[in-house]
């Protein structure tokens, strides 16, 4: 049996989620990476550890606490209700927020490595050539750190596509809203629809391989990350 409309909907939703999260991750992760690369603050270790937590924690733990935070009794839930946004759990927005936390280290670390590799000297040179800090960031840091950003974007995207536990905890299983490919596969397997599960699971295997192949061949400098 070929993939049905529900499968396609899950694929579409997954791509939408991963793209949104990737954009958000680059926006949020870059300042964090910049700060971690340049700060001499004692908080550096604390922030590094916090950012890296998703690497270690089971996704269910992270999902559980995010669910509590976003729930009607949690501080984030209180704020979103106050702002008239409603509750985030079991919505696409909730999924985006949770996924952003979950994939943060995959973006922060490559970008931080790239910025650290550039060092301070090019920024000093740019400053002596009349470039403001923002100007230097756009015209010196971004081009020099491009491999790091590329790695970060690919890893952030791929990792979001591959997540399961957090989605299940935060988003549940609502078709067209929160049912992403990994959850759809789970459903197929639960229903013993192995052929359909194969289509999606095999697709994921191919996707993962192609992404990593692209990462390691197109962007050889990023191998460290």
């Amino acid at each position, binding site marked *: 049996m070929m993939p049905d409309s529900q499968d396609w909907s899950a694929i579409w939703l997954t791509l939408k989620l991963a793209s949104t999260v990737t954009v958000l991750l680059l926006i949020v992760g870059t300042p964090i990476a910049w700060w971690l690369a340049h700060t001499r603050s004692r908080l550096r270790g604390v922030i590094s550890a916090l950012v890296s937590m998703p690497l270690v924690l089971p996704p269910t733990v992270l999902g559980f606490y995010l669910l509590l935070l976003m729930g009607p009794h949690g501080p984030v839930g209180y704020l979103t209700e106050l702002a008239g946004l409603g509750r985030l759990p079991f919505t696409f927005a909730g999924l985006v927020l949770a996924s952003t936390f979950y994939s943060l280290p995959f973006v922060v670390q490559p970008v931080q490595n790239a910025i650290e590799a550039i060092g301070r*000297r*090019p920024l*000093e*040179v*740019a*400053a*002596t*050539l*009349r*470039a*403001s*800090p923002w*100007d*230097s960031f756009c*015209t*010196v840091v971004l*081009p*020099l750190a491009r491999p790091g950003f590329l790695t970060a974007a690919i890893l952030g995207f791929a990792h979001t596509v591959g997540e399961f536990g957090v989605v299940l905890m935060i988003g549940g299983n609502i078709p067209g809203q929160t049912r992403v490919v990994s959850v759809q596969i789970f459903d197929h397997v639960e229903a013993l629809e192995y052929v359909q599960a194969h289509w999606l699971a095999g697709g994921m295997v191919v996707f993962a391989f192609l992404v990593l192949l692209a990462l390691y061949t197109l962007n050889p400098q990023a191998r460290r990350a």
Partner: protein
Amino acid sequence: MMVQTLDQDAGLDAGSGQSEDSIVLRVQHAFASFSLDVELALPGRGVTVLFGHSGSGKTTLLRCVAGLERATQAHIAINGTVWQDSAQNRFVPTWQREIGYVFQEASLFPHLNVQRNLAFGMRRANPHGNADDILAVATKLGIEHLLKRSPDGLSGGERQRVAIARALLTRPRLLLMDEPLSALDAARKQEILPYLERLHDELEIPMLYVTHQIEEAARLADHLVLLGQGRVQASGPLVATLARLDLPLARDHEGSVVIAANVIGYDPEWNLTRLQFSGGEIFVAERPLPIGKPVRLRILARDVSIALSGNNPSSIQNRFICRVTGIAPTDDPAQCLVGLVAGDAALTARITRLSASQLGLAIGQEVWAQVKAVALLE
């Protein structure tokens, strides 16, 4: 050669901060392991060399002038423009200071070709700058054929020339150079020095040049500042400062003086160039040079000996009548320094204390200086 005549002690009074033609640096900055505490009034034109060994604070001082380092307490004013004044909590960030900065390593942007590296600062400092301006400065530094090349493909000397051109294209009011030759081998240094000397002759703006090589200082400086352990040991015109017997510079084995001279002829029979300085004529083994060309001569104190009369036959050609101006100890207990003046030109002789005693040298006495070796610095 330009010799600044700024008085050594002048310019540190209250009014000097507003001067239109001077560089005022009062910098206090404490680090974990050393502190910088410097008070300097420097000429607003010409080349000032900040000279000292590593750890003397010369690079830190330069970085404070550029704003790359923010000194705890500082007053930094360049020809009337105040860049930092802690008293008024004023600190102009580096990118708003009209400086050109040449780092020890050329630090070209690897993602831009030579032309774009040169354009980077020019576009920001001078919106009217165009490709012709780039070409003009590139030609001056002999890099016009490299414009389309990537920095990766350049030699160390070429890269440093691009860095100098890039700094000049921002039309700075002050040029700062942090040991621009120290990362280069001897041959590359000789490749760049003539360009620096041309800059010295043509540049309208002041330059602060950091080095620990006295030879570079002798070739380029108008004004010399000696730094040691974060303090100013001396600051004054190059020629006068080198000749001071009380400074570690003179007591060093490489102690030397610099003399201004003009080319007056060439003797093809003996392959010698004739030069005139205020104490007489000097012969130098050198290729023919244009008549009238002003040059600098560097004479090491250990290459100068003293005789009481000038008519004893000797292989040493360069002999001048001098007056003894001072006698001082050196780091070596067997030797002493004798300050001499020939015409207006100061010379230093490093001789044994025994010789000084046997000759009965005394201040004011007339003697003959015999100069064994002269280095011509164009």
